[in-house]
């Protein structure tokens, strides 16, 4: 067990170190998120009532697209220089390595979105209560995007135009997360309480944590043949 934790740590630290040495890639994703979210109030107009209705949905869709942008990089670089090949033949369970990579991916491209969301939510006139729920829903939902996205990224390894393909594969799978993520904020603002939505997001997260690493491992073995 401790060796599994050590392996997980090793992979996460490795990917975080790599991300820190390629900061431009990380920042590009974050700026994309900020800009997409900020464009809507400019385009739709400063009508507070309208903005408040579309706010949660816009933030969630932007988070979804930003996480798709970063997905392509999850395995492609490792595939190109042969380190992925080496990971496939280590004595460590591949699912643990994959979980580590997905976790690092979330820390780099998901967690910053969660932290920035309240700031962007202010542009939409969301009240404090709504901002908290937005953050919480993103905190539960964005790891699901990384985990499910890993399956798509693994399946499209080495395929030409993999970036577009991975979005086509993964985006439909993330629709439930989008619905309940944005729905949580709406429900809380309309006084229904976000409990049910957040519970479902938590369930998605648990399901993805258990199933996605195995599916991704299988996909990687197929792609590496």
């Amino acid at each position, binding site marked *: 067990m401790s060796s599994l934790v050590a392996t997980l740590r090793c992979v996460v630290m*490795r990917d975080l170190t790599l991300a820190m*040495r390629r900061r431009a890639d990380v920042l590009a994703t974050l700026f994309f998120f900020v800009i997409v979210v900020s464009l809507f109030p400019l385009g739709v107009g400063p009508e507070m009532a309208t903005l408040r209705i579309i706010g949660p949905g816009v933030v969630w869709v932007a988070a979804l697209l930003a996480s798709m942008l970063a997905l392509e990089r999850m395995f492609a670089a490792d595939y190109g*220089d042969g*380190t992925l*090949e*080496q990971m496939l*033949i*280590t*004595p460590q369970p591949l699912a643990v390595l994959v979980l580590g990579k997905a976790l690092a991916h979330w820390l780099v491209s998901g967690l910053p979105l969660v932290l920035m969301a309240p700031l962007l939510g202010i542009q939409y006139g969301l009240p404090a209560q709504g901002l908290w729920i937005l953050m919480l829903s993103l905190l539960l939902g964005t790891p699901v995007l990384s985990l499910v996205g890993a399956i798509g990224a693994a399946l499209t390894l080495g395929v030409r135009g993999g970036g577009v393909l991975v979005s086509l594969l993964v985006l439909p799978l993330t629709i439930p997360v989008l619905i309940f993520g944005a729905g949580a904020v709406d429900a809380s603002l309309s006084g229904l309480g976000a409990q049910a939505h957040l519970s479902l997001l938590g369930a998605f997260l648990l399901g993805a944590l258990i199933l996605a690493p195995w599916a991704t491992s299988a996909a990687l073995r197929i792609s590496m*043949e």
Partner: protein
Amino acid sequence: MANTAVLDVSNLECVRGDRRLFAGISFSVKPGELLHVQGPNGSGKTSLLRMICGLVLPVQGDIFWGGESIRGLREDYFKEMTYLGHLSGIKEDLTALENLDILSRLAGGDATEDAVVAALGQMGLAGREDLPAKVLSQGQKRRVALARLVLCRTRLWILDEPFTALDVAAIAVVQALLSQHLHNGGMIILTTHQDLGVLSEVSPAGAVQRLQLNS
């Protein structure tokens, strides 16, 4: 366990695209033996090595380690094997030290930082441990990859063109490593386009098997 550590390959067939690269390949490698896979470009040498690693599934035939199919053994087999492909598995953004440390830790090794530094020193990279791999030359990157062989405790080494891009001094170091490994009862399967003198120095006892693949 020591006497069961034998690699048996039986009736292997490889198809790439719609072309059959080879079929009916059978051999076995015993402790202290070296197998040199020969053949022209495109004859399936790399495919064969990747099959023996478990990266590619054979269309037909099977690979056995100590009598058990490697498909069933999986991680238990990977514990005994080190593969060095023609991609070095080196991350350009990490330093030589970080690269080697991560590779050896993922391979289940518990090498200390001193051991990793010593391994790099043995490959002639002393003083370059903290340089990012992207500033190293092709040959130096290859040396970082080969330094894994110093650290690993596996019994089966599968090496795809281990001597490419190396200078004479580095080739001598690798030869010494390989010969030491055979001496300790290890097994090696490799491909190389270097002249055969390189291998006769590795294993003068004539424990070199040859396998010829035709295109």
